[in-house]
């Protein structure tokens, strides 16, 4: 019993809402040993956070809890509020997903850290400050003395999150719970933080629960994995076993639906899981995953229960060894081959961008895009990747005409379209479509699906006959795997994946020749992302449309693109055919980016290139290489002073750096 620092036994958490009671955590039992780290994984809404908050005894008033949570033998659920106060922050610490909102905006960072020590360890003000500074140093924050005087909004997101972690470390807790601490951050920042967390665990010897929806991330920090689905643990075990021998169909699907290193569209089609996570009522028995499982049969309801698979490896699937589930995991479906259109001149540029600039604002200028040149070939996918704020969206928006460029030209076919939407002709508007990141926001919440798609058809394809239009809409909806019944629905009634399908249908309904996709999957769960990516790919094969695909996820870009463009601070870092960029990258930033991508396969861990600091201030004009300040390969003064020349490797592959190949 004393092997475990935390034992959760038959825990149930239910919320009563206006449409009844539902189970957010259902019969969860879990043990966590001293100095052990487990990662909890699962899609959004699976109850991961609820589980964590229940451990902290911090739940909304509409929650009902049942079961036991023993921390060092004491049942936390029976503790008084007062006793909990001495556990929280002291013995068990927690870090949240959104660092910015977790810090009190009106208190200095120092104050917020000091109070922890002062309260739990009864330190004096100066002692507390000393502890604070130490904790900040532990998180590799340079100039901790400066940081303590600042307010949260005065430091960047990455630093905020490190401060939050430092705050959790202050009392050297026995258990630390991290709830998706890096989800809101860039890959490069994420990599740095994950590294420090892993390091901390080694030095401080504490137990840890790490929550994430990304297996890659969990891989870096935990040895054991717990997979949650719809409030239940469906599989748990050491990460190696889970990865090599996933038993539960959900675990398998989860692993397989992620585009990971080396998976590309020509070779494999992504696995998808139909449907979405449903809330489960209290009395619903059986396997929660049954309705989405393509291998389900009658026993899924009746003979449902946890099975021991191997040492420390359990799975809640009765059919874990059933023969009809192929044992071979990495089986993937091969996609349909791309049809070649003989009339198609694939060498002519569909879109050409020359010296494109965008400066926002009048008084306080923001140099968002600072002179980029590239072209998009017809019937191809150009992926743009880069950190947040590097100007990806701005580029996409200028091309689709949301606003005109400040300088430079955009040539589409033969026409110059370096103008805003209000000056573009109908033909251009029709030919270039835009799909947004957040499907919920790009569809008008008060219009029906029919109106949303129909209006575009009416405006740009001149289909004015309502009946004819309706037929076409039904047609196009079928293409994105949605039925007729969706016509009358409003966006609110659709799930995220369905919403994005409607957005895609809207763009496709008028047969454009270029679709700018601005992070169309980053707001979606991995399983949904897979289906949207598949859909986009299939549609492109079908319709000859070209995509300008923007994402910050290199795996996604790698999977889908024919060409890749890496952007940094409003400039192009590297451009080339996908395989060339991925396998033969030359720009130091591309290298860093590639190294930072979390690897799903635990056997294939690699060293990351840590990037310190952050993007240069977009309000300043930079003379030299924008990456110089963070570059691990900096060659000297020249990097800061002079903008690097273009180095052309092949006709289609070039980069901007002072380092020659």
């Amino acid at each position, binding site marked *: 019993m004393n092997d475990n620092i935390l034992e959760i036994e038959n825990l149930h958490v239910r919320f009563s809402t206006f449409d009844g009671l539902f189970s957010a955590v259902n019969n969860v039992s879990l043990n966590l040993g001293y100095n052990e780290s487990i990662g909890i994984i699962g899609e959004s809404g699976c109850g991961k956070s609820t589980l964590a908050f229940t451990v*902290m005894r911090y739940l909304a008033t509409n929650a009902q809890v049942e079961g036991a949570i023993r921390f060092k033998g004491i049942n936390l659920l029976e503790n008084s509020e007062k006793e909990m106060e001495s556990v929280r922050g002291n013995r068990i610490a927690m870090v*949240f997903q959104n660092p910015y909102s977790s810090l009190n905006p009106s208190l200095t960072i120092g104050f917020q850290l000091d109070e922890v020590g002062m309260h739990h360890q009864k330190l004096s003000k100066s002692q507390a400050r000393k502890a604070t500074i130490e904790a900040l140093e532990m998180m590799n924050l340079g100039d901790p003395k400066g940081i303590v005087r600042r307010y949260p909004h005065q430091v960047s997101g990455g630093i905020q999150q490190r401060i939050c972690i430092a705050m959790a470390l202050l009392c050297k807790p026995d258990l630390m719970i991290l709830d998706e601490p890096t989800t809101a951050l860039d890959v490069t920042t994420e990599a740095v933080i994950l590294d420090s967390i892993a390091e901390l665990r080694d030095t401080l010897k504490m137990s840890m629960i790490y929550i994430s929806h990304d297996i890659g991330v969990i891989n870096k920090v935990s040895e054991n994995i717990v997979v949650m689905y719809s409030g239940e643990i469906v599989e748990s075990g050491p990460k190696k076993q889970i990865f090599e021998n996933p038993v539960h169909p959900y675990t398998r699907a989860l692993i397989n639906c992620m585009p990971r290193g080396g998976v590309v569209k020509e070779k494999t089609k992504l696995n998808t899981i139909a449907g979405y996570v449903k809330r489960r009522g209290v009395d619903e028995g059986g396997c929660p995953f049954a309705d989405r499982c393509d291998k389900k049969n009658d026993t899924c309801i009746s003979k449902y229960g946890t099975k021991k698979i191997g040492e420390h490896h359990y799975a809640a699937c009765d059919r874990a060894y059933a023969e009809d589930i192929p044992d071979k995991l990495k089986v993937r479906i091969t996609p349909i081959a791309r049809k070649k259109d003989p009339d198609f001149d694939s060498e002519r540029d569909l879109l050409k961008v020359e010296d494109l600039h965008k400066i926002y604002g009048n008084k306080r200028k923001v140099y968002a895009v600072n002179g980029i040149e590239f072209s998009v070939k017809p019937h191809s996918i150009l992926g743009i990747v880069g950190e947040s704020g590097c100007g990806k969206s701005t580029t996409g928006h200028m091309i689709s005409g949301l606003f005109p460029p400040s300088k430079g030209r955009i040539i589409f076919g033969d026409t110059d379209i370096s103008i805003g939407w209000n000056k573009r002709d109908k033909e251009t508007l029709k030919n270039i479509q835009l799909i947004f990141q957040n499907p919920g926001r790009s569809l008008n919440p008060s219009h029906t699906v029919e109106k949303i798609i129909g209006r575009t058809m009416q405006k740009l394809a001149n289909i004015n006959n309502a009946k004819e239009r309706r037929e076409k809409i039904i047609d196009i909806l079928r293409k994105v795997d949605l039925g007729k019944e969706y016509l009358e629905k409003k966006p609110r009634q659709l799930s995220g994946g369905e919403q994005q399908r409607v957005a895609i249908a809207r763009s496709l309904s008028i047969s454009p020749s270029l679709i700018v996709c601005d992070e169309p999957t980053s707001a979606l769960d991995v399983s949904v992302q897979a289906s949207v990516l598949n859909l986009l790919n299939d549609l492109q094969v079908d319709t000859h449309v070209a995509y300008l695909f923007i994402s910050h996820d290199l795996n996604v870009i790698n999977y889908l693109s024919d060409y890749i463009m890496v952007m940094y601070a409003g400039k192009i870092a590297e451009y080339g055919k996908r395989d060339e960029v991925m396998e033969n990258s030359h720009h130091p930033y591309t290298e860093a980016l590639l190294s930072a991508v979390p690897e799903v396969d635990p056997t294939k861990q690699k060293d990351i290139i840590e990037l310190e600091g952050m993007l240069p201030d977009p309000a300043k004009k930079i003379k030299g290489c924008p990456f110089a300040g963070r570059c691990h390969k900096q060659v000297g003064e020249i990097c800061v002073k002079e903008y690097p020349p273009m180095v052309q490797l092949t006709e289609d592959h070039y980069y901007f750096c002072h380092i020659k190949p």
Partner: protein
Amino acid sequence: MKRLMEMFLRRLGSLLATLVVMSFVIFLLVEIMPGDVAQMILGQSATEEAVAALREARGLNDPLLERYGRWISGVVVGDLGDSIYMQGVSINSILWRKVGHSIILAMTAFIIFVPLSIFFGVLAGVKEKKPTDSIISFFGLATMALPEFVSGVILITVFAVQLKWFPIVSVIPIGESIWQNLNIVVLPALSITLVMFGYISRMQRSSMISVMNSDYIRAATLKGMPRRYVIFRHALKNAMLPTITIIGMNMGWLFGGLVVVETLFGFPGMGSLLMTAIKTRDVPLIEACVLLITVIYSVSTMITDIMYSYLNPRIRYQGGQK
């Protein structure tokens, strides 16, 4: 600090611009309205001749712009002109005494209702959905729904007529100053307080609730900070920020309420003066009162704005990001 100063100057500039336009609008408004001042002054037995003579004597026949010019150039140097009635009695000599009274009344009300409503608002917010909350919220709603003159009548009936604690009418005996008669301020201040209490405590409550549900309060609680500490050190300041704006925005209601209660209690303040001026169509006095109210009102909104940004580090240090 520099930003604050900058902001202050900018606001002051826009306030001046507002006042210039405003003064003309007020002037225009008052001047183009129907009704004849001269007729009003002379009453029913006035002959047309008498009215004409008076109009001429008071310069009422001059072109509008000329009159405005005359008026505004006086105002600029602090001369608000003469009351149309008491020639030789400058408005300055009438107005400021009453303004003083009104300010004492408003400040008294302010000093009562601001802490009171913030306290109860916070209490209700912290005890969300508990009986304490329901009682405070309902009381707030009820007082908010009673216009000043209704709550004033109730207060008069209870405290002045029945209990005789305070005078029914807020008159200062001849030869005495308001300081010797502070009991006349109590009931009018209370009736203003009641309305404002409802409004502000409700606002305070909802901002408290939203702050209490915020991530950083959750974080502070999960750091193991005791509830009281969380409420006072972490929640209060953030929850009070919106309240400050609300108070600023409600200065308008306060002034409206002032007119109403002053009229109700016969309180010798600016509000009842304005009311008399309107009834007697004392144009220069109306203009002076409205202009003054505009100034006080704008200045007080300006102060709340500045206070808001001073208390809010997100604005105070904007642009200070490294």
